[in-house]
């Protein structure tokens, strides 16, 4: 901006807009294995630098290197690869289903599958995620039936949420997946409260808060950090920085802070920044933070650096605000390709087996979709009725809702 000698409002801009040739040359990416792994009981003041770097395990030669390597067996890493493939395949099919008018809305996790899938692998039964709408990988990894997920997407009669919630806003108490609100950031502090209850009860169950880069600007993010800092409950607070909040680039929420992870430093929280497209690194850092929580060493804040390859949702068109080929230049690569490359280099996987697995997963997901669509989709088949709308507003339906239900059933010709 030309200096006119007058004050002006500073409004941060992304480096590239549609039509520009994107590069990520300014992003400082340490070599895999370069960042140390401190002991879990380290004092937060001694690892402040970990909030401003990127912890990485998988090298460009497809090797797992450094102190954060080897948190997983090969079998587990292979399971992780399958989880991510399942997730991507399901996302693709449901995106098509939305385009075919079978549901109103869908959000895929394309490009950031490793974050939720690897994190869930480090949790134990009894722990509780408070996810955002792009963490369906948590459910896939915990073995939640894909058909149940699709029933929710199609809001059919078998939808566990009885048709009340927009697609992607899953809930499964059994699988440690708290009901997603759809409002942003509200659940970050709820995760901290849940973990406070775990501490009050003398338990070691871990509460996990999830938030996106854009939503860290909300007051509830800071409320979560204050409560975590003050009461030191067993929780892990995850920021998924996928660079874009719908059309708004991450710099608008980050402001002049160096990184999102560094926002935890003033709260005295151990704050780590990790390569979100590196399945092994995500798992290793998650395991470190969860171990801290379980050993009563307090909360950890983690920023996952990743890239939202797809649109924000089926209602969004990213070509209007970012270069079309920006994803191709993303320097941290694709999470599935990277883990696949690592496993092949290790000799426990091959291109053939991968292709075979991809086709097997395609069949598995298609079968789940057929099963779910046979029950119903948003506008066809078996759907939840008016009664499902009135139930669960309160534990017991009060008189005014009973009256309204009767009226609604009459309108629907069921009264």
């Amino acid at each position, binding site marked *: 901006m030309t200096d006119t000698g007058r004050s002006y409002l500073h409004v941060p801009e992304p480096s590239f807009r549609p039509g520009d040739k994107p590069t990520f040359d300014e992003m400082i990416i340490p070599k895999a294995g370069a960042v140390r792994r401190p002991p879990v009981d380290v004092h937060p003041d001694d690892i402040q630098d970990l909030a401003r770097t990127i912890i990485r395990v998988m090298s460009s030669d497809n090797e797992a290197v450094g102190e954060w390597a080897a948190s997983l067996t090969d079998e587990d890493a292979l399971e992780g690869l399958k989880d991510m493939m399942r997730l991507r395949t399901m996302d693709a099919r449901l995106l098509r289903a939305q385009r075919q008018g079978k549901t109103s809305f869908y959000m895929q996790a394309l490009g950031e599958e490793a974050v939720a899938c690897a994190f869930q692998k480090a949790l134990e039964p009894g722990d509780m995620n408070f996810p955002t709408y792009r963490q369906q990988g948590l459910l896939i990894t915990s073995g939640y039936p894909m058909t149940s997920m699709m029933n929710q997407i199609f809001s059919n009669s078998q939808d566990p949420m009885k048709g009340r919630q927009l697609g992607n806003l899953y809930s499964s108490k059994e699988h440690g997946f708290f009901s997603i609100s759809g409002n942003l950031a509200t659940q970050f502090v709820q995760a901290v*409260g849940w973990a406070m209850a775990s501490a009050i009860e003398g338990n070691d169950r871990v509460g996990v808060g999830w938030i996106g880069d854009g939503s860290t600007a909300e007051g509830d993010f800071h409320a979560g950090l204050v409560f975590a800092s003050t009461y030191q409950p067993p929780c892990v607070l995850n920021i998924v920085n996928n660079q874009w909040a719908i059309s708004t680039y991450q710099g608008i929420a980050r402001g002049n802070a160096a990184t999102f992870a560094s926002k935890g430093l003033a709260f005295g929280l151990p704050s780590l920044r990790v390569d979100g497209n590196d399945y092994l690194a995500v798992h290793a850092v998650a395991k470190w933070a969860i171990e801290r929580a379980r050993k009563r060493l307090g909360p950890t804040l983690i920023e996952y650096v990743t890239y939202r390859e797809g649109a924000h949702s089926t209602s969004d068109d990213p070509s209007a605000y970012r270069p079309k080929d920006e994803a191709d230049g993303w320097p941290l690569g694709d999470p599935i390709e990277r883990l696949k490359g690592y496993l092949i280099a290790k000799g426990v996987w091959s291109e053939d087996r991968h292709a075979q697995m991809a086709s097997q997963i395609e069949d598995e997901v298609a079968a789940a979709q057929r099963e779910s669509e046979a029950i119903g989709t948003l506008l066809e088949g078996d759907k939840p009725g008016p009664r499902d709308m009135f139930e669960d507003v309160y534990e017991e339906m009060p008189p005014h809702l009973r009256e309204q239900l009767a009226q609604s059933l009459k309108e629907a010709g069921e009264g």
Partner: protein
Amino acid sequence: MAKKTMIEAIRDAHHIAMEADEKVVVFGEDVGYFGGVFRCTAGLQEKFGKARCFDAPICEGGIVGAAIGMAAYGLRPCIEIQFADYAYPAYDQIVSEAARLRHRSGGQFTAPMVIRMPTGGGIFGGQTHSQSPEALFAHVSGLKTVIPSTPYDAKGLLLASIEDNDPVIFLEPKRLYNGPFDGEHDKSIVPWSKHDDAEVPDGHYTVPLGKAKIVREGKDVTILAYGTMVHVAKKTAEDQGIDAEVIDLRTLVPLDTETIAQSVQKTGRCVVVHEATRTCGYGAELVSIVNELCFWALEAPVERVTGWDTPYPHSQEWDYFPGPKRLGAALNQVMEA
């Protein structure tokens, strides 16, 4: 039976609830070591330990948000917002989260919790310590909204609220904390110790949510009131020599429409009264309900007596407050119609 102030009755309810159920936890601004700015939680931390009664940061959104997480875990938080006027930063957590959790999760997760907050004016608190935001909560499906008017009801309703499995907004008329207030602000305060409704039994009892109480029987006109205005209504009816039936609603949601309808069917006249601002106030809902249920029994249009549609003022407090004069004029109006 001992007489108690409303503060002592609320404190008593806390002690009983926490003794009966170790899942009950209490927190909020200044509620721990100090026992609350109105002393409603005094002695709890000493008796039950810091893990069950503690001070919170000045962060209402965080207080309610954390309580939702705790409730989802299986605890029963009973939290204090220092003044109802401070609830707005927590409004999103109350409306979008606590109120909807059971419904949106298909019954998998619930938020059994009580959010206590002192409400109303009459204490020269100015605009940030005097508001009556009950309509903002009564408007939200999934919440129950409760307002006691006596120490006896305060204890019984609070225990019922803590034991309820849905989120309850518990509004405590702060002008009633230390004594009943009939609106005659220039006369000296009558303490609860001189009032029959201050008889509070020891031990556990509940006053059921959703049940109104006829606090004065009458034949000629029904006055629908809650909180501080219950006492103003009783006094005004007596002073005017009008045979008014005064109903203390006690719970705004769910509302006891049966008691309301029976009374108005009998009297054929009705005045609704609240301290909150007029437009879209809870009184508008009451007038609608009376019209829906009792229109053919009415002998006069239903009157509405409220605070003005201005911010709650400081020095003009008694110009704002819907005292005996404003209510008396409305009573005369319906009686003459």
